[in-house]
């Protein structure tokens, strides 16, 4: 009896370590969360860039706000990327990951440009437009997810 319990517990532990696909609901929640984190990061960057354009922020404060936004979004996206999607949602998973990586790349670009050497008025406008477009794309993605799927 005791051997059977130990064997059962071992089997349970080993099965918990395998990369079995998440169920649909867990994947959906995880995707929602990751897209939400990207919206938070890009939205924060928009607030920082707009405020900096009006000379409303000190440079260190702006840099740290952008770094925090990038760090948080990066962590959430990494968690989503590491999870195994359900087999029939792999295409959606890849599509979301592509969108999230685009958002992270933009966030990193904004942070680098703002931190040094600083933004010119033209760069500020250009980055502002790209942030607006990225936010719109992420919000569309989020709305599709909430509605029940991408396909």
């Amino acid at each position, binding site marked *: 009896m005791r051997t059977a319990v130990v064997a059962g517990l071992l089997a349970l532990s080993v099965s918990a370590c395998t990369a079995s696909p998440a169920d649909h609901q867990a994947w959906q929640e995880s995707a929602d*969360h990751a897209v*939400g*984190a990207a*919206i*938070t990061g890009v*939205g*924060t960057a*928009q*607030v*920082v860039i*707009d*405020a900096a354009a*009006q*000379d*409303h*922020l*000190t440079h*260190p*404060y702006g*840099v*740290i*706000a952008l770094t*925090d*936004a990038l760090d*948080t979004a990066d962590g959430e996206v990494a968690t989503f990327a590491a999870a195994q999607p359900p087999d029939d949602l792999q295409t959606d998973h890849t599509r979301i990951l592509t969108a999230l990586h685009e958002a992270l790349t933009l966030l990193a670009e904004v942070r680098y440009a703002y931190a040094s050497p600083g933004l010119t008025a033209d760069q500020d406008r250009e980055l502002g437009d790209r942030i607006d477009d990225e*936010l719109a794309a992420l*919000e569309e993605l*989020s709305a599709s997810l*909430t509605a029940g799927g991408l396909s």
Partner: protein
Amino acid sequence: MKKFVALALGILTAIGGFVDIGDLVTNAQVGARFGLSLGGVVVIGVLGICVFAEMSGRVAACSGRATFDLVRERLGPGMGLLNLIASLFVTLLTFIAEIGGVALSIALVSSVSEVLVVPFIGILVWLVLWRAKFSIMEDVLGLLGLALVVFIVALWQLGPDWGQLVQQAVTMDKPEDEDWMTYAYYSVALFGAAMTPYEVFFFSSGGVEEKWTAKDLGTMRANVFVGFPLGGLLSLAIAGSAAMVFGPLGVEVDSLSQVGLPVGVALGKIGLAFVLVGFVAATFGAACETGLSTGYSLAQFFGWQWGKFVRPGAAARFHLVLILATLLAVGVLMTGVDPILVTEVSVVASAVALPLTYFPILVVANDRDYMGDHVNGRLANGLGTIYLLLVVVASVAAIPLLVLTGMGA
């Protein structure tokens, strides 16, 4: 005139000292996601802390003894120990979060990583706890904390639809895209942030430090019933500012830098300077209060000499606890753990520990042997009982809600 100045100073420091890292972070998070629809919880929490702070202040003024001192004597060592363990755990967690909050605030000014700043802040906090006079520590940091009033100015400048904000708060109008479970989780977190246990320990022990007597009851009540609600107004302004700037973008608040951004947007660099001073003062003041509270609770339970009104040499064990608590906080933060995460955990842990903290105060405040003529009246008992029921509900619901919502994710 001197009495009036003392009264005004007490009220101002109560306002400035009301907000800590838990209030800053939780109110901004809630504001960004729920607007002011949880404003009613802040009001309920502030009234609750007023009820119990007044009770514990009255106990200190009438008996000349602080909370833990009486809890063990009145309720026995078993109940006292349970109360001590729960409160000490939450207070230590809050102490870690506050030191982390100071580090994050300094990082916002200096761009130096918060992990590198933590040891210096630990030394500075310990130096203040060891050397600074109690009244100077409380007054200076409380007055500097008033810089956070800039959130009220910022909210005004952001030009909200006041009618809509009030309607949100009054009708508790949950946003459609949020579920009730998450709404309930943040209600409990806000309640825990407003009614943090250390506030009553610090308040009652501070009363003993400052040698309150029954003659000081009027001043104490003015501090509580005027200062705390005005401090609560700061909490609502933080939530309102976050709602105005982040709400329309669907942005959630995950960092201290985001908490101050709305003020920068509304008022520019001068506003931001006030925010930074306020952040440092509020978190540093709360770090000193929570640090002292760990020493107060242990020393009062075990009957050691305690307090800053005696020479450090005469209260060696009390000061040793302060050193160990500071070392523990610095050690935890040096691991690189996110202070915001510690803050989020600490406010929920506060909610869990609330009944163990507040029930004994209600019992002691009803004991005529300690309180004489100043024993609880009907109003204090009625409110105390209602709040005891509320804190039990919050305490029971806190952990299940934390698990079910994935910490409000």
